[in-house]
C-alpha cells in the first residue's frame, strides 16, 4: 500500500489551520492549529470523538469552508487566495467529496452522476461520458452505468460516488464517514476501492470512527477538541504522563 512514490509537493497541505465558528461568547474553536500533509498515493484516516473537528477539517481541505487563520494548499496552491469561480473550479477539477449518504442525484443514472462534474466544467457530453465510464470501471461497477441510484445497493452507490469524486483526473478525495450507512462487509469493499484509488496515485483523507476501516490508511491521525493529539505515523511522545509527585 502507498507504493506510489510521493512527490515533494503534497496534494494537500494544511498549515497551522484554525477554524473558529461564531464570535465572542458563542465562539466555538472547531480546529486549533492543525498541520498535516497528504501526498499522492497516500490514504490518511482521521479519527476522533464526535465534535472533535473532523468534518470541519474535511470541509476546509476541500474549500467548502475557510480557515480563521492558517492556510490550506491543494497541489501547492493556497486556496485561501481563490474566490468564487476559482473555488468552484477547484472543486470541479481537483477535489472530490464522498459522504455517508452517497449524495447521488436520483434522477440521473450512475454514468450521468459521474459525468456531471465534468459537464459542469464545460466538457462535451460524449467526452464526459467516456471519462465517467472509465471511472466506473476503475471502481468495479462499469455494468451499472445506466442504472439509477434507487436501483443500486448502498455499496454500489458509494462506489459510484467514489468514481464521481475522482473522475477527470482529480487527485484529492475527501471522504466523511463513507461507510457509515453500510454493513461491515460492504463497508470493507468500499474501503478497498478507496485504498486502490490511492495506490494508483490519488490522495485520500478519510474520516471514520471504525478502527477496522481506519486501518486501511497509511496513517491514522487522532483529533480531540480540534487538536491532533496523536498519529500512527510518528512515535508517541508522552512526556508528562505522571505528574511530578511531591
Amino acid at each position, binding site marked *: *500500500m502507498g507504493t506510489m512514490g510521493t512527490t515533494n509537493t503534497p496534494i494537500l497541505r494544511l498549515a497551522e489551520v484554525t477554524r473558529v465558528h461564531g464570535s465572542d461568547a458563542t465562539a466555538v474553536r472547531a480546529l486549533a492549529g492543525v498541520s498535516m500533509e497528504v501526498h499522492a498515493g497516500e490514504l490518511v484516516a482521521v479519527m476522533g470523538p464526535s465534535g472533535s473537528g473532523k468534518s470541519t477539517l474535511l470541509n476546509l481541505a476541500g474549500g467548502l469552508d475557510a480557515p480563521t487563520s492558517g492556510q490550506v494548499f491543494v497541489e501547492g496552491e493556497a486556496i485561501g487566495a481563490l474566490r468564487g469561480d476559482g473555488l468552484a473550479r477547484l472543486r470541479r477539477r481537483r477535489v472530490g467529496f464522498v*459522504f455517508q449518504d452517497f449524495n447521488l442525484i436520483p434522477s440521473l443514472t450512475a454514468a450521468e452522476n459521474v459525468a456531471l462534474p465534468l459537464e459542469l466544467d464545460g466538457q462535451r457530453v460524449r467526452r464526459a461520458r467516456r471519462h465517467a465510464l472509465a471511472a466506473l470501471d476503475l471502481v468495479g461497477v462499469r455494468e451499472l452505468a445506466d442504472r439509477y441510484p434507487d436501483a443500486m445497493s448502498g455499496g454500489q452507490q458509494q462506489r459510484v460516488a467514489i468514481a464521481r469524486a475522482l473522475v477527470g483526473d482529480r487527485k484529492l478525495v475527501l471522504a466523511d*464517514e463513507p461507510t457509515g450507512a453500510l454493513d461491515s462487509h460492504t463497508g470493507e469493499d468500499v474501503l478497498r476501492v478507496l*485504498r486502490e484509488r490511492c495506490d494508483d496515485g490519488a490522495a485520500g483523507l478519510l474520516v471514520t470512527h471504525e*478502527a477496522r476501516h481506519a486501518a486501511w490508511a497509511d496513517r491514522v491521525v487522532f483529533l480531540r477538541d480540534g487538536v491532533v493529539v496523536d498519529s500512527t505515523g510518528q512515535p508517541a511522545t508522552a512526556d508528562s*504522563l505522571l505528574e511530578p509527585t511531591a
Partner: protein
Amino acid sequence: MSVKLGLLALLAEEPKYGARLRAEFEARTGGTWPLNVGQVYTTLSRLERDGLVEAVGEDAEGRIAYRLTSTGRSEVSRWWLEPVDRDSTPRDELVIKLALAVTVEGVDVHRVVQTQRTATLKHLQDLTRLKHRASAGDRDTGPDTDSHDTAWLLVLENLIFAAEAEVRWLDHVETRLAREASRPRRRTSGTPTDEPTDEPTNERGPGHEQGQPTTSEKDHHRTTA
C-alpha cells in the same frame, strides 16, 4: 505481564506491606488476577534484590512495609508510558493496567488510553496490510494452497477482530470516565437521579456522552462535485 509491575504501581502511592498489597491489588482489578500472600512476598524480595523497592522497617505487629526506590519509580513511569507489548504478554495486562491507572493518583489515564489506542491501530494497520496482500494473492494460487490461504485469512481476521474490539473498548473506557467525571456535579445538585449506568454505551466515542452537539453527519455541507 508479571505481578511485579502491579505491585510497583501500588507502591508508587505510599509504602505498604505485603498483605495490604495483595488485598489492594485484588480489590482494584476486580479479582481478575487473584494472588496469594506468599506470591506477593516472594515478588517483593525479588524486587528488593533488584533494587526496585526497599524495606522501611517493621510496624508493631512485625510487618515489613516496602517503598519504591528511584529505580523502582522510573520502572513504574516507564510502564505507564509504554503500550502493552502484544508479542510477549497476554492481553490481560491492558485490563490490569487500566484498572490500576484509574485508581492510582496522578496517572493521566487519557494519555494511557491514547498511547494504547495508537499502538493498537498500528497493529491493526499491519494486520490489514497482511490481509490485503493475502486476499490479493488469491488469484495466483493453485487449488492445493486454497485451504491454507483460507486458514491464514481466518487467523488474520481473528486478530483483526481482537484489535478492533480493543480499540472499541478503549473508546468505551473514555466514555465511562467522562461520565464518572460528571457525576459529582449531579450529586451536589441535590436532585434524585436515576443513574443511567445501564444505558447502552455509545461506541462512537466519548464525545457523545459529554453533551456536545452531535451534528448529524448528514447535515453537513453537500456538494455534488
